[in-house]
């Protein structure tokens, strides 16, 4: 027996065919729960919040600023007025450290934001379009990976000149590659996953797959990588300060303070140790948060 073709009509799509009607724990709820159970990560988060308060709220409680000199009180030891002493130009080290924290955090977040934008666009296109274009884009990334990044950071910094804005630009355009790789890899693997296949068989449209299924699952990884790239950027800035390509004084970053403090260890080691400790604490916090996030977002850990 044969049926005439015109007896088939497409069913009108009236509801989201792949909708799950039962309440479920979302990835986010799950991640949050697991993150909270990780003491190192939670500790890191609390410390980070405290440091942010120190950097952004602290200056409101200080009588000093980061630039005004007081040549009659240079290199003072700690006192009630200057709990961490003063620097070579009589500026309050504690206050400068607050501003330095601000700038270092800004460098971390700012450059990662640039990384993120370039990386997501590049990786997204590469992963989603696929084929020849993907191949080409991947070869380009391979090349950038074979280039010693530190060398290019220095070359670009020398080309553009030191200063905060240029640090943003250089760190931003130098480190997006990792992000692009992650995003692409995620999208590629996701595309082949059963749940996407399931969604597709259930008839979900492409944008819906991309936004409802692919991106949210990628976001976890992106956040993890970002959390680990922020300290890397702060670190790189410290190195640039050491070789004299950091922020433009009298602006100050933690890296700059440490590099300057290096000159004075025999006299006042604290001028090096204090900013270095702040950097270290920031690094530890970000790394623990990053590790915690990775564990939290890793579906394999969901047991």
């Amino acid at each position: 027996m044969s049926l005439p073709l015109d007896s088939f009509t497409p069913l009108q799509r009236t509801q989201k065919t792949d909708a799950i009607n039962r309440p479920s724990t979302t990835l986010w709820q799950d991640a949050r729960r697991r993150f909270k159970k990780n003491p190192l990560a939670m500790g890191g988060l609390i410390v980070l919040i405290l440091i942010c308060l120190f950097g952004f709220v602290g200056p409101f409680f200080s009588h000093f600023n980061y630039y005004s000199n007081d040549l009659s009180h240079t290199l003072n030891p700690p006192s009630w007025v200057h709990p961490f002493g003063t620097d070579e130009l009589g500026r309050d080290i504690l206050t400068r450290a607050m501003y330095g924290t601000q700038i270092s955090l800004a460098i971390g977040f700012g450059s990662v934001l640039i990384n993120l934008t370039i990386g997501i666009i590049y990786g997204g296109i590469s992963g989603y379009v696929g084929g020849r274009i993907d191949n080409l884009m991947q070869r380009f990334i391979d090349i950038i990976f074979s280039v010693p990044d530190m060398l290019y950071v220095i070359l670009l910094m020398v080309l553009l000149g030191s200063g905060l804005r240029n640090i943003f630009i250089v760190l931003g355009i130098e480190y997006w590659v990792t992000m692009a790789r992650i995003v692409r890899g995620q999208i590629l693997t996701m595309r082949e996953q059963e749940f996407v296949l399931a969604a597709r068989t259930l008839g979900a449209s492409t944008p819906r797959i991309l936004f409802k299924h692919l991106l949210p699952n990628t976001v976890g990884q992106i956040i993890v990588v970002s959390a680990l790239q922020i300290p890397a950027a702060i670190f790189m800035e410290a190195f640039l300060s050491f070789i004299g390509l950091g922020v433009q004084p009298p602006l100050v970053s933690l890296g700059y303070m440490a590099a300057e403090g290096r000159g004075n260890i025999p006299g006042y080691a604290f001028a090096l140790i204090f900013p270095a400790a702040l950097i270290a604490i920031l690094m530890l916090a970000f790394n623990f948060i990053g590790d915690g996030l990775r564990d939290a977002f890793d579906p394999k850990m969901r047991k």
Partner: protein
Amino acid sequence: MVRYLLGRILAAILVIWLVITLTFFLMHAIPGGPFASDKILLPQVQANINARYHLNDPLFKQYTDYLKNAAHFDFGPTFRYQGRSVNDIIKEGLPRTAAIGSMATILALICGTFLGIIAALRQNKTADYVATFLATIGISVPSFVIATLLQYYVGFKLHLFPPIGWGDPNQLVMPVLALSAYPVAQITRLTRTSMLDVLHQDYIRTAKAKGLPGYIIVFRHALKNAIIPLLTFMGPFFAYILCGNFVIEYIFNIPGIGQYFVTSITNRDYPVIMGTTILVATLMVTFNLLVDIAYTLVDPRIKLTDQKGV
């Protein structure tokens, strides 16, 4: 396999050529020439210097000339140290940097895997947190701070090792320690993660069920597979050893190649910038290739094919 290798080598040459091109034009875009001085030279003398180093040629000709010479492994004279060639500098400096680098690598491998295993076996217990914390310190303190503190407190205050210099085994200790801080941290973290991964695998569960003692499970079954991801880290790591060595070599005054990565740029010593860049790029490409080959040797599941993609 042979076809794959040939393909990879060709690709590597292409990459190095692109690196050369990129560096060459970027370098010439930087303001300030190699022979700038606060004492002003006669225009004729300046012209002679430029002529001697072919700096008057059109940039593209300089570029093609450079490629021709580089193809014969002639990387030219240095602009800063008259009478010496880039080849001399690499020949003298690279072995020293490599010596410090390999010692730091070995130290890092030992300490890193040790801490990583402990952390993984005692996951979410005190030992894990202590090990993770110790390891993270290595990536938390800038190397110039570590080096400076070591130099001052261990070298001067405790008088244990000479603060600067090269040649005596004593003079190696502090640079190696300072240089290994960062890789120790990385290796610990990598080992911990991959050990955890492996420990959750079924075959480990089987081994445990068989009643095998813990150390045999760890060393014979788990570690062997857990160490594989470390290989991925080794490629970029060698580049770190070369470039990242700058701070260590500068502070401890070690006559290696690492310091040239920064000084050649600030001195606008074009041939040295090019030479060192090519050196690192070549090493990186080579190591990445070796790592990929090593992968197939340690992990039979991975096969070398010329398939592209992840």
